[in-house]
């Protein structure tokens, strides 16, 4: 029974893809897009920071070394976009994740081995950018696109205590897989969207920029 239902769903989706292709060739299904999805936010290294004391010789005396990173984790995102033309869409996104901040301490002057200290934080990203549709590269029913933009990062802890803020730039791309499209109705079309992004984070307390990749999939509804 379940297998038959799965075949039926696949059949409907295939029909939807076919219809969406036909629709896109003529008129845009709608201009306002809303999407919800989930994905994976890759880790980011914040680099090494030694705990140095001042030595009598002028050279620092190293008490221990540390390396801090943000570990990869799942993310949830919501997005709203507005199609300026058939090719260009401006969009804004809010993403929430709960990564673990991790510091690995090693080479302590008094104790052997390495130690790991971790803590979960809440990370919120609010960004805005432009999506460029590359319909001319469509293949297998998948429509590619490119994205780029900038945003704001806010990391909170526990009772919403601020850990860190900063900004980010991102570039990336992905594909959309149309599910259905119709000329009339409140919801004009639906599609699945897959994103692959490279976020370049610049946090206020960190002098260097950090790269963080992410991949996500979302359901897009067009109105």
């Amino acid at each position: 029974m379940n297998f038959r239902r799965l075949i039926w769903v696949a059949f409907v989706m295939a029909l939807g893809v076919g219809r969406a292709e036909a629709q896109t060739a003529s008129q845009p299904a709608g201009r306002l897009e809303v999407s919800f999805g989930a994905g994976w936010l890759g880790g980011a290294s914040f680099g090494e920071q030694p705990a140095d004391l001042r030595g009598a010789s002028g050279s620092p005396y190293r008490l221990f070394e540390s390396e801090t990173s943000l570990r990869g984790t799942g993310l949830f995102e919501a997005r709203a976009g507005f199609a300026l033309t058939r090719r260009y869409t401006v969009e804004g996104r809010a993403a929430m994740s709960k990564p673990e901040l991790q510091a690995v301490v090693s080479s302590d002057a008094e104790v052997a081995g390495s130690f790991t200290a971790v803590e979960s934080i809440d990370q919120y990203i609010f960004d805005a950018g432009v999506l460029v549709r590359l319909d001319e590269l469509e293949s297998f029913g998948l429509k590619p696109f490119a994205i780029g933009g900038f945003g704001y990062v806010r990391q909170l802890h526990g009772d919403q205590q601020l850990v860190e803020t900063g900004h980010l730039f991102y570039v990336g791309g992905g594909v959309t897989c149309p599910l259905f499209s119709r000329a009339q109705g409140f919801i004009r079309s639906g599609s699945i969207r897959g994103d692959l992004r490279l976020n370049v984070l610049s946090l206020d307390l960190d002098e260097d920029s950090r790269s963080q990749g992410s991949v996500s999939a979302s359901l897009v509804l067009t109105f």
Partner: protein
Amino acid sequence: MTSRRLRVWFAIAVFAMALPGTADAYIHLGFDTGGQTRAIKWTASRVRWWANTRGVPGVSSLQFQSELAQAFMTWENVPTASIAFEFAGFTAAAPFEDDDLSVLGFESEPDMDRVLGATSFIVDVFSGTIIESDIFFNSIFPWSVSATGDPNRFDLRSVATHEIGHFLGLGHSAIGETEMRPDGGRRVLGSGAVMFPISLGRGVVADRVLQPDDIAGVSDLYPDGGFRDDTGIVAGRVRVDNAPVNGAHVVAFNPQTGALIGNFSLADSSFRIAGLSPGPYVIRVEPIDDADIDSFLDPQGVNVNFQVTFHPRLIVAPRGGSTASFDVTVPAK
């Protein structure tokens, strides 16, 4: 008036220590009164100080005054602290006289052959207000005012900056590493605070510059406008076998900036590290083993029989508040 005054001696050795009195607070100096520890501090917004007229080879009285003025200015320039100083003039009065004058000067103390300098106080025992504080620099040692340091002499401004930290009410910091020398003294391998009790040695001028631990300490004692709102506190307890650990040295390390700020656990095992920039911290706990315990605390009840331990959690210091108390469990030696 006399009954309310108490001369509290804190032998503030920079080269090595001797502590004939009480130093019972952690970062801040204090004294016991009615079973409670009362921190001492100046209440005047501008503290007047006098320079003794006596010079020593290599340091004239004018150079002495100039170096001290710059050392005072180092503390006055801490942006998150509100304390100011005024040079009141030269005086023939010697340090450590009960004369209501805060006098700084050279004294020859051959019996204190491991003490570069020391600070004493007269305080109001009810309020903890410092009435007078004197500093002596031991003239049995060779002194220098060279900007880059003289390898055969101790840098006066570095030692003065340390002593003025005591003058303000700060105790010793334990952020440093030492090793024993054959003669029983200690050699400093590294120091993370001007208020570390042992000098970096002859020719070194590094203690002219305050470190994050010094800045946090003076800012916590004399907070300026936004200090308490802009910084956070990490608070917790140190336990061994579920029992309290008295006198554990707890250090908060900022993995973003490299800053080290420390404090000690009290008899009830609680500790509190204030003046932290908001953000995550690595917590390291160690026994006092790099200087004599009485350089920091009343040695009675201090536990040094545990291992250096890193807390398994990163602790996030909140802006303008304190963390919930957390326990750091240390294994016994």
